[in-house]
């Protein structure tokens, strides 16, 4: 399969994402520059973390208008697998590919630490490698990860089972302890924690590996179906 990691001015987890994808998923990984306009060649697209455009104004607000986001929207509509991590999640929210918005952390401070997540759904294309209810270790590193949506939206998310990851010990004040959500179709996942930082025991956890493995397995299954 072919994977893409988008690079915006100010992205800083792009290299880490490329390394993680290379380590886990067979096939090419390309960095795709924000001024490019074509993502049609890719099965899996990662919108990495960082501080796109300095996170000035609101995180993700300016990046959302980069030329590449248009084809990201098309890829989402076409059912391609899209993973937004941290700033990538914020960009997906600003672009309207996922519902809700981010506020500054309850503590107002940047928080970087290992974090325990509960897997709420082990059947999405991102999480078949986990058991539902399993507790995994994936670190967070952000200042604006305090997820917000109104009550009606929250009910929709819960009813549709769109909450994929929840914090065991909420580090930022997000509603309903939400750490990661998917779109209704299930092909777009946004999460504040960094799975690409949990891919080697030496880094403190390798629980992130199974997320990328799940994505690869899904792609393989789709391929088989086609064959």
């Amino acid at each position, binding site marked *: 399969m072919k994977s893409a990691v988008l690079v915006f001015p*100010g992205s800083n987890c792009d290299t880490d994402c490329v390394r993680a994808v290379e380590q886990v998923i067979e096939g090419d990984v390309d960095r795709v520059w924000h001024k490019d306009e074509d993502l049609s060649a890719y099965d899996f697209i990662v919108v990495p973390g960082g501080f796109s455009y300095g996170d000035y104004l609101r995180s993700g607000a300016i990046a959302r208008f980069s030329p590449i986001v248009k084809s990201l929207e098309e890829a989402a509509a076409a059912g391609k697998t899209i993973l937004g991590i941290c700033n990538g999640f914020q960009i997906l929210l600003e672009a309207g590919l996922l519902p809700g918005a981010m506020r500054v952390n309850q503590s107002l401070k940047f928080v*970087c630490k290992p974090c325990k997540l509960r897997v709420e759904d082990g059947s999405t294309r991102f999480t078949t490698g986990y058991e539902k209810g399993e507790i995994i270790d994936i670190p967070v590193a952000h200042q604006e990860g305090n997820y917000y949506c109104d009550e009606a939206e929250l009910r929709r998310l819960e009813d549709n089972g769109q909450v994929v990851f929840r914090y065991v010990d909420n580090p930022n004040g997000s509603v309903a302890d939400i750490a990661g959500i998917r779109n209704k179709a299930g092909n777009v996942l946004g999460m504040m924690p960094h799975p690409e930082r949990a891919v080697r025991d030496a880094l403190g956890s390798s629980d992130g590996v199974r997320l990328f493995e799940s994505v690869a397995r899904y792609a393989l299954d789709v391929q088989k179906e086609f064959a």
Partner: protein
Amino acid sequence: MSAVDEKFREPTPDEIAEHKVYAEMGVSDGEYDLICDFMGRRPNYVEIGVFSVMWSEHCSYKNSRPILAKFPIDGPRVLVGPGEGAGVVDIGDGQAVVFKIESHNHPSAIEPFQGAATGVGGILRDIFSMGARPIGLLNSLRFGPIHRPEDRHNRYLFERVVEGIAGYGNCIGVPTVGGEIVFDESYNGNPLVNVMCVGLIDHDDIQKGVADGVGNPVFYVGPATGRDGIHGATFASEELTEESEAKRPAVQVGDPFKEKLVMEACLELIESGIVVGIQDMGAAGLTCSSAEMASKAGNGMELHLDRVPQRAAGMTPYEMMLSESQERMLFVVKPEHAEQAQAIFEKWDLPCVDVGSVTDDGRLRLMHHGEEVGDLPVRAIVDECPIYERAIEEPAYFREVQAADALSDPELKGEEALTGALETLLSAPTIASKRWVFEQFDYMVRTNTIQAPGGDAAVIAVTDSDKALAMTVDGNSRHVYLDPYEGGKAAVAEAARNLVCTGAEPLAVTDNLNYGNPEKPEVYWQLHRSATGMAEACEVLSTPVIGGNVSLYNEHTEGAIYPTPVIGMVGLIEHQKEMTRSGFVEAGDQVILVGETKPELGGSSLRAEVFGKRDGAPPKVDLEVESKMQQALLAAIRKGLVQSAHDCSDGGLAVAIAESAIAGGQGATLSATTELRGDHFLFSESASRVVISAKEEQVEELLAIFEDAGVMTQVLGAVGGDKLEMKVNGAAALNSQIEVLKDRWEGAIPSIMSRDH
């Protein structure tokens, strides 16, 4: 009023002489006369401005050069020593590590967030302008006390400095992996903010800041120049006074997002192989970078200041030469590569402007709209600043504090008193866990941090290699104050010991000398004595000084700060599996004290925190013993005989053991024998000591290594349980739940910092 009033008329050369305008810029009468000699005439306003910043302490080291001359700077691994943006040390396989430390003390006192942030930005530029990819940031911070209600301003400074470091480092995506923080009265009104950056480079890519090749174009890259920080370098070289308030516009605002772009673009440019010379615009901005690049090549340079991108309308040549706007670089390429260079910056949406050219006449010529507005001799500005051998005088306090009997405090006896003292020390902000700080730093980005903040040193894996780099910053200024010579030695020894505790071989040093006004003979004595000690330690421990920084004039209303040399050190781990950590690992492991404990309580944390006294002779370091101990420990670690290692520093053995227990989440049952008084044994801060743990079956082999090296050891007992219990000479001494110790240690700073909210 804005930084420069629009209606301000620049004084003429004669007015500058008659009204001694140069004095306001920090130039002395004698220096002014010398400048006139070099110029062959009276300098105009922009010319005297250029001289004043280049001849400031910050740029010329005019007071500290004789001191720096003491340091050993050579070693088999040193590829680039002091003088360039940063030093470079070989780590094998064609790779090298680049590192340097910088201070941003005065800006941080005035505006802590931006002061600290721009400090980070500046040191990063020093590293990537060498061609290196920054891989880690560290910081060394000093503030006044924060624990009392009335310490609100110190809490504010602490909180905002930490946020400023986080704001910049996190955004640019370089992990902040370590540091140290001390709170002491001595830093009231004059906090210290030192930042260190470590980078990785291939030998082939090492850059120098030289303007070679007459006729080559000179390019300016980065954001437009504004009226920021005009005279920042001079500002850094003066005492902080009420008047500094009036100089407030000297504070600059950082833009880490821009710097990220500049960094990526510059690394891409360097990778392309077309760069002749490149240097960042740090202190003294365009002036310093252009003059130094020309001087290093023995050339001259012509600059067309009207071409410099400008943020404000109507900027004068003086303002453009002296602005310290951030995130800017200067580089030279051959004419045929100009287009290629510009294309790289275009991709990153950054201005890249041809602002001049390299000349052969040794002059720095400044043009503005076709008119020559300045003409200066390059060598004179860069190399001819007079060097001052300042008067030296042993201060009166020295005899007094040395004479104090540090062993005269009432004995702390029995479990309750000793455990109480331990808890007091663990919750002292200087010793307490700095988790509240480092969790605000992204210490994981780049996914190479294999030893996170909280241990003796941070360890960063080298991508695609089995190697790793350990890094630390250290300095106990109370000890330096009490005995600059011994304290200077101890700072180097402690830094090296911290690296060895992670399994790394110490490579080299970058140092930051933070002192008071060098024109005071007692301050100069402190500088001289401590540098002598540091130099000796660097020599014996084979860690040459490859660069550093000097920050003088750190004074407040009550006088100079403690003399504060900060040692930044980097070490090499050849095989990642050899890395050790400070926390106990497994129940049953044997706990061993390595090194000799002497009754050395002078300047100790126990005396400061429990008895409120800050005097006595500090511990003495026997450098030969230190060296033997470190080598033996490193050998043992490499043989896989050591489960954990943690150095004894602030708070002595008791604190070291408690920290190993907390970090490992396990207690220990220990018993020691000593000829010292029990409290002295537990809290003495004797150097060259480490607490290690080892598997029971390997203890014998381990002890033999130390015995062969002539290093004392004492097996104290075993890891296990949820309590720390320790007997000294058979009498119960320490007894506490690990959870309780942990609460004290982890809870201290968060509870203090939640006070104002």
